[in-house]
């Protein structure tokens, strides 16, 4: 299945004076745990080492966030943060995959409003092609995963 890029509100700035919106590889995914399911927007980010979602999403699914394995990580700002990892399922384009994914209370939703689909948990399971001009994203699941 192909997805389209998503458009979000934005404002002109000196570098991009005509900017009215921003187009990003953000797709709806389903996050599943213990029979509970939530659909949530996530950014495909090949620069992220793993998948990370907001703690509130995990809590709404019934996950005891702090019972997971802890990992300290750095965002682009260089600030050290903590995430707690849990085994969940994600469903993308109809494919359900097991995903070892981090949840963080320090993953600031006002700076990053989307979940992050990174290398481990997403790119290791899907071969992804993105075409900015055509506004298309095509994740193809790898048969052996």
């Amino acid at each position, binding site marked *: *299945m192909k997805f389209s890029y998503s458009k979000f*509100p934005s404002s002109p700035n000196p570098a991009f004076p005509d900017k009215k919106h921003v187009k990003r590889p953000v797709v709806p995914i389903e996050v599943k745990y213990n029979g509970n399911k*939530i*659909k*949530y927007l996530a950014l495909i*980010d090949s620069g992220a080492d793993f998948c990370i979602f907001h703690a509130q*999403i995990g809590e709404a699914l019934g996950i005891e966030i702090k019972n997971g394995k802890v990992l300290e990580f750095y965002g682009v700002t260089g600030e050290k943060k903590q995430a707690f990892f849990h085994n969940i399922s994600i469903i993308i384009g*109809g494919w359900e995959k097991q995903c070892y994914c981090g949840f963080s209370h320090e993953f600031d939703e006002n700076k990053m*409003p*989307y979940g992050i689909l990174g290398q481990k948990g997403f790119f290791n399971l899907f071969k992804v092609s993105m075409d900015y001009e055509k506004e298309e994203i095509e994740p193809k699941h790898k048969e052996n995963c």
Partner: protein
Amino acid sequence: MTNETEKLLDLSKILEPYSDEWVALSETGEKVVASGQNVKEVFKKAKEKGEELPILTKVPKEYGNYVL
């Protein structure tokens, strides 16, 4: 798996009134069905309105410019 393409999720206008809130979008992403300060509250409100699997997202005060 089908070869269909999901429609462009154009949220550039409909999210503007919901700055700093979590929102639940309809299944097609065409309208906001519920909003509030946290995920559990917004998910519950959307389900009460008959939206079985709404699309949740946070609307930040500013979408900013990323280099990730």
